[in-house]
């Protein structure tokens, strides 16, 4: 993407990005993907978030699941690191805490493949400014 020359430029970039994102979030779209965000702040990494992220990337590919794995900052649940947020197409995001390789495997097999929740969900307990 090139330089942002004006407010209009910026808004256009934003619209493009939003369109792309909603594409991958929209469950009716056949191309829709599973989204996984791994909290990769200092506490997360210290608790093994990097390994968890690598596990997801490798295993999802091996198991032929179309998914986007990205990193993100601290979700605030430092007591439960590493934390991972999984969004299935068309569904609300679900946050899992204390994720290690075994838990990640469980998440892929049960939640991502079959939509069955697994133990260790961290309920989201805050409001975002969008809602306000």
């Amino acid at each position, binding site marked *: 993407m090139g330089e942002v020359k004006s407010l209009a430029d910026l808004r256009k970039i934003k619209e493009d990005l939003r369109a792309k994102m909603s594409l991958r979030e929209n469950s009716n779209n056949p191309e829709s993907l599973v989204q996984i965000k791994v909290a990769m702040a200092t506490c997360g990494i210290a608790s093994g978030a990097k390994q968890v992220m690598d596990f997801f990337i490798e295993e999802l590919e091996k198991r032929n699941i179309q998914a986007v794995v990205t990193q993100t900052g*601290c979700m605030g649940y430092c007591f439960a690191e590493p934390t991972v947020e999984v969004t299935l197409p068309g569904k609300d995001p679900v946050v899992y805490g204390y994720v290690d390789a075994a838990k990640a495997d469980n998440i892929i097999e049960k939640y991502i493949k079959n939509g069955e929740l697994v133990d260790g969900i961290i309920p989201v307990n805050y409001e975002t400014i969008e809602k306000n």
Partner: protein
Amino acid sequence: MHVLVCGGTGCHASESEALLENLKTIITDKGLDNEVQVIATGCFGFCEKGPIVKIMPDNTFYTQVTPADAREIIEEHLVKGRKVNRLLYVDPENKEQIADSKHMGFYKKQLRIALRNCGFIDPENIDEYIARDGYEALAKCLTEMTPQQVTEIMKKSGLRGRGGGGFPTGLKWEITSKSVSDIKYVVCNADEGDPGAFMDRSILEGDPHSVIEAMAICGYCIGASNGLVYIRAEYPLAIDRLKTAIAQARNYGLLGNDIMGTGFSFDIELRYGAGAFVCGEETALIHSMEGLRGEPTVKPPFPSVSGYYGKPTNVNNVETFANVPVIINKGADWFASIGTEKSKGTKVFALAGKINNVGLIEVPMGTTLREVIYEIGGGIKDGKKFKAVQTGGPSGGCLTEKHLDSPIDYDNLIAAGSMMGSGGMIVMDEDDCMVSIAKFYLDFTVEESCGKCAPCRIGNKRLYEILDKLTQGNGTREDIDSLRNLGNVIKDTALCGLGQTSPNPVLSTIENFWDEYIEHVTEKKCRSGQCKSLLQYVIDAENCVGCTACARNCPVNAISGERKGIHVIDQATCIKCGACLEKCKFNAVLIK
């Protein structure tokens, strides 16, 4: 269908495990295994009303569910589709039962403004930031507003500095903008040094662009084209992410010359801290950036008049900046509608210590400590009793039970003998000795004092020594008076914010835990058992069988007693090594 059972520590204590087992057994009995799954979750952060059960997908939220309620939930709700009304949450204000958790007031306890993107976007991808309205505020300011208009919005929003002092941000910007100079600077204070605080680190790691954008907006307002981030070298990840973000912003032309063709230029450089807490004080920070010892100087002149290399410099901390783009986008009135009369918006706290949900939270100003600790924080770890909460780090004080229901804002905390500080919030339980805690903080201040002014350099050392004397059991009543006088004089005479607040942990614990201090000096007793020198090993006559094991193992022959007779420990000789306790097979050695 899913049945979610809270498996958080708080709920765990209230039998959530038995509940979970019951639910599972009954579901298997009824042959519902394929349709219903029972899941243990992390803490809902509502431990007061635990255990919590949530039924998905209809979002029904049951509170205070006992193991005996399992059958009713399954038979009524899952099988017949009728909600169990008596277990529904009742709104304390209008007494209405709420079935859907999305309508519960509890979820309004936390509101994420500064943390809006943390844990949501990829901090190393500027596009994700832009997709969430990133740089929109900067673009708006540059193309649609004059610097004065932006400053006006900031003033109207009521945002106050989040680094500790609480100086009105808009006013600071205005003063700097009015200082006449060819060069001015915008400085972001990211030298978060309070032990137990990690808000700024989390923001920089999770949402670096919001700080960059805000610095550019500030630069536009005050007429500066140079930005500097003074960041702790101990935060390598935050430094990396910030560097990446700056590079991306430059690539997009959002930093650099002639931003968006408006003629406004702004760029950001990093300066590293090197492990000196006092550099959080803005004059010390500026000296450190100039390559000097981080010693503070007397204000005035304020940095907004004469700062970095004598030029007008606006210093704000990370969290303050993180609020700015939202204020511009959503308006001053929106921001000012959140919080209390004199403290607007939200505050990020790093919850730590003896609390279940250690973590980063953001609540509107005016939230009570009780809400933060019990509802968001999930209560005290291991079911222990709450004793105190320390806010404001080494500059703050310890608040107790009686402060739990007072709303958190700048002025209330100061009135209670503590301060907002940067947002560290450490929870302590019955096992923590308040004299030792005060000593811990003084140890920190002694270590971190720059040494420039006498009251801080020597006075804090003396405070520490007296506290140490108390924890050794050598203190007197006069020592407590000395602590008070000395503490007050240091507050009154020290040069900078560090010294002026360093006695707070002592003064506030004396104020709030007077009995504990008195016990340390008169009874030579430490009720939490933290002060080793004050422990007493005694032999319980009822359990002692006279086996002599303790006496034989005592390295200083402090134990006497006939074989088969009751033994006694001579307190004057005892060195409190604990050997007797270890050797006694009859639980006859007790610690008092």
